[in-house]
């Protein structure tokens, strides 16, 4: 099944269809730190998180760490990876650095960043489909290959929880996943398609079906609901 449905009566811009289909396949390919099957396993955990009893209980709690338990996992991924995927999926506004450090201590910061990026790309594509009433696609086929574990040389401590490129060209969020460039590029392609669209980003007036103030108001609403400080 195509990721974004061509047959929708909404007449979806082909830009979304081609970008989503391309990125979906690449999500399943071998990464720099995780294999293709492991990345697809992480994607299966994103879907499982919505049905997870522990995630549901934690989302109702004053603090998620008040509730102990085991996630309803559907993969063989390490428990720290499962916890990362489930919490990032269902309760992103209450992640903390001490918690992240416990995950990073086990997985390593590169694996942490790669899995975060995979989850975020998947989340955007699936959210787009859900919000338009389109069916979710089957998970991608897992690609072959062995992760090459290549860490970029231009990364360091720039004040975030994980190493990032020290070369600040644009917003900090645009370099959030720069520790794993081969996966980060998926994220960049997706944000370009959905939001920034090249030089348009610097303009106050956008030639789109929604005006820029309308887009930014929607963006602010989403960020407030997720309690995202950035």
């Amino acid at each position, binding site marked *: 099944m195509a990721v974004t449905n061509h047959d929708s009566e909404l007449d979806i811009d082909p830009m979304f269809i081609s970008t989503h289909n391309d990125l979906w396949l690449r999500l399943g390919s071998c990464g720099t730190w995780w294999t293709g099957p492991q990345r697809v396993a992480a994607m299966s955990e994103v879907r499982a998180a919505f049905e997870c009893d522990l995630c549901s209980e934690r989302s109702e709690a004053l603090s998620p760490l008040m509730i102990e338990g085991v996630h309803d996992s559907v993969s063989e991924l390490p428990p720290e990876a499962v916890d990362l995927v489930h919490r990032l999926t269902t309760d992103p506004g209450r992640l903390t650095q001490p918690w992240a450090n416990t995950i990073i201590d086990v997985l390593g910061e590169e694996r942490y960043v790669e899995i975060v990026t995979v989850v*975020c790309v998947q989340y955007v594509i699936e959210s787009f489909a859900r919000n338009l009433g389109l069916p979710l696609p089957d998970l991608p086929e897992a690609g072959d290959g062995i992760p090459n574990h290549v860490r970029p040389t231009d990364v360091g401590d720039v004040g975030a929880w994980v190493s990032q490129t020290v070369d600040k060209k644009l917003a900090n969020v645009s370099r959030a996943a720069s520790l794993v460039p081969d996966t980060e590029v998926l994220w960049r392609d997706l944000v370009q*398609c*959905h939001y920034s669209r090249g030089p348009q980003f610097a303009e106050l007036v956008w030639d789109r079906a929604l005006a820029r103030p309308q887009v930014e108001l929607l963006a602010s609403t*989403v960020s407030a609901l997720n309690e*995202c400080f950035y």
Partner: protein
Amino acid sequence: MRYAESAVQRDSDLTESRTRLLRLIGPQALVEASATVSAFEGLNRIADATGIQLDAGLADESADFRNDLGINSYAGAVNTKSNGSPDRADSVLGIFR
């Protein structure tokens, strides 16, 4: 706004919200709305999971209203070390300096 709320909170009235919005703004604008909502679902997550700080320009831009809006009480606020000084950038890109 109701459509965004329904989408983010995965409310049972998402279909109704979408239908109402489609009637109001048409299919192309609805698709743009969905693209924006989903993009920021992802942007919020990647920002929160990597613990990035506000850009200096963004901190300045929001210094005079973050507290009033309750944004400084969000969990992610502790990641940003400087509150910034109230100031307005003269361009979009200036916000992200």
